[in-house]
């Protein structure tokens, strides 16, 4: 059998990141805690290099390589860039936090970069096998990161739950994939898509496979009823890790949704549409309602994430390229908001103090009007109040849903997001109208403050000028 050397160029970013992981791993061995910043800088350089490579090798038409297991297209490039960006921001935000808690180790960076690699693989996957392996790389790295603080029993418990439930979900996904292979005889998305379009489309085995695959996706996204890990993990993990989990992996999960359901199983649209509707409705309802009862802000944001995931799914439900673009916009925006919200928790925390209860936000306006304002923007954006970008994101997915005639779904989503506005506004009330419980000055690194401010301002600016980003999303999904 003749073996053709595949074209490596489209996968250069992945190759680069993996090489750098090995470099970081080895370099870190020779570093002491004092000059750990070399690891930090190397990791940032990795992300920057990957970003440059991704831009250099971008391609407007899908480029397949490695026997069709890898695809490089516009959507992939954009999503990867945002993955790098949010990871870089996570590194900046979490530096002080990790130093104060003795977690500022090379392992954190290596694991995070591994997770990035996994996400990149998922984003560029065109084969069930690649997508699964990418998912596993990401998940394994995240399990380990959640447990990074071994002295915290709550973190270990969270990691354990995450690991077990994640394994079950992986098992289901894999089972679904094997059924899919059985029904179509291929692992390749393109081949699967054509096999489905040739068939009757009502094949019971396909539907069976679809259920399992959707469950695997739903778990990754954290959609109800496969969401149970989300609050525990968000709450239990060190805030830096929560920050990481809440941002970039959602982008990757969206990519997985697109690659699997839309590109691979687009022929089963009518079936997965109904399944996603159930997931979306449950997520929006349960996420928003339970968030109200939380007193821990990390937990509250976890439930808010669940409801955001519901909104994110809405766009995909529409099954139109507008809807996909709206979802893509939503997930990017969500990542930005999530970075800002968890970043703020880390900004307020200090050695021996986590700042993760709602009460810790009381009177923030007296302590720092500027950062209170940034948090205000972020929360408004999460609640979907104009002119922040969150409003536009919600509007885009809702109009996609309305366009296909599912008005009831849009109305329901709006009602529950109004209910959801309550818990965001409550935090704002605490920040502005309550007296500060502690008046410790807010100290943190200069670069973090700058990036934090930029993050908040971008949320506002994108709300005023959303057209650029939405046009980008539309163009790569056209």
């Amino acid at each position: 059998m003749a073996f053709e050397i595949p074209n490596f160029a489209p996968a250069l970013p992945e190759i680069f990141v993996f090489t750098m992981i090995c470099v970081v791993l080895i370099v870190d061995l020779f570093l002491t805690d004092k000059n750990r910043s070399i690891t930090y800088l190397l990791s940032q350089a990795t992300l920057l290099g990957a970003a440059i490579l991704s831009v250099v090798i971008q391609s407007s038409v899908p480029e397949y390589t490695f026997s069709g297991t890898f695809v490089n297209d516009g959507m992939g490039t954009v999503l990867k860039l945002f993955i790098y960006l949010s990871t870089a921001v996570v590194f900046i935000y979490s530096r002080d936090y990790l130093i104060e808690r003795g977690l500022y180790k090379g392992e954190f960076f290596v694991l995070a970069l591994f997770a990035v690699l996994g996400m990149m693989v998922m984003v560029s996957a065109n084969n069930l096998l690649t997508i699964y392996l990418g998912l596993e790389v990401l998940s394994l790295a995240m399990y380990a990161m959640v447990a990074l603080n071994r002295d915290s029993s709550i973190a270990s418990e969270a990691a354990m739950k995450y690991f077990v439930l994640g394994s079950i979900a992986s098992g289901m996904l894999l089972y679904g994939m094997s059924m899919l292979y059985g029904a179509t005889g291929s692992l390749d998305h393109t081949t699967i898509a054509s096999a489905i379009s040739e068939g009757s489309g009502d094949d019971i085995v396909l539907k069976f496979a679809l259920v399992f695959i959707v469950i695997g996706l739903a778990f990754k996204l954290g959609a109800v009823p496969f969401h149970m890990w989300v609050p525990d993990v968000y709450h239990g993990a060190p805030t830096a890790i929560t920050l990481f989990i809440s941002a970039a992996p959602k982008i990757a999960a969206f990519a997985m949704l697109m690659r699997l359901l839309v590109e691979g199983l687009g022929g089963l649209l009518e079936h997965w549409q109904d399944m996603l509707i159930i997931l979306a409705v449950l997520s929006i309802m349960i996420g928003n309602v339970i968030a109200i009862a939380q007193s821990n802000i990390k937990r509250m944001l976890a439930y808010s994430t669940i409801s955001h995931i519901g909104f994110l799914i809405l766009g995909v439900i529409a099954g139109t390229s507008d809807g996909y673009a709206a979802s893509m916009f939503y997930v990017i925006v969500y990542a930005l908001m999530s970075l800002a919200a968890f970043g703020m928790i880390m900004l307020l925390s200090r050695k021996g103090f986590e700042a993760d209860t709602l009460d810790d936000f009381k009177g923030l306006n007296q302590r720092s009007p500027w950062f209170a304002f940034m948090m205000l923007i972020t929360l408004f954006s999460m609640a979907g109040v104009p002119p922040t970008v969150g409003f536009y994101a919600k509007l885009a997915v809702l109009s996609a849903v309305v366009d296909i005639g599912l008005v009831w779904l849009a109305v329901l989503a709006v009602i529950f997001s109004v209910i959801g506005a309550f818990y965001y506004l409550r935090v704002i009330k605490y920040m502005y109208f309550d007296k500060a419980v502690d008046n410790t000055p807010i100290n943190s690194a200069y670069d973090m403050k700058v990036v934090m401010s930029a993050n908040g301002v971008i949320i506002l600016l994108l709300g005023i000028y959303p057209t650029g980003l939405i046009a980008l999303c539309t163009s790569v999904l056209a």
Partner: protein
Amino acid sequence: MSIEPILFYIFSTILVLASVAVVTVRNPVYAALCLVLAFFTCAAVWLLLEAEFLALVLILVYVGAVMVLFLFVIMMLDINLVRSKEGFIKYLPAGGFVAILILIEMCVVLGPENFGIEITGEPLKHAADYSNTKELGVTLYTQYAYPFEIAGALLLLAIVAAITLTMRRRPDSKYQDPAEQVSVRRDDRVRIVKMAAEKKQ
């Protein structure tokens, strides 16, 4: 009727029974051994499918390495047998109902009308010199080179993760450093203090 179907039914029956036993037997060591049995019979079924390499790997890796490790762990830990089965009866109705439901649904889907021989077609018979190992290797290193590399990365990650989570100095444990112990000198341990002798009172 050839011998193969008979063998298949024998192995399959044992496989299913062993699997059920894994969940139901009280003693975890027995459960682990049942799992070993399940792996064995599973490997045998794979052999019938001419997947020799996979069958052997299953036995070598899972039975040889994983299950042994598993047994070690079970034996080293003091597991409360009673507690681990606590609530079994309480959850049985709900759990049983769901399990039966899934079973029925799987039977409907996975029955012969979808996976029968006339649907999937008869598997290809290979000649005696056909090497399953070689074929797998060729596919793995050519068509699936990329997933294979990622799997390599995954393993590296697993090593890093495992070491990260286990290699640490517990704040509450006391450990010894032989290098330090060997290089210890008298001055580090004994302090000779000169003082004037005191008179007996």
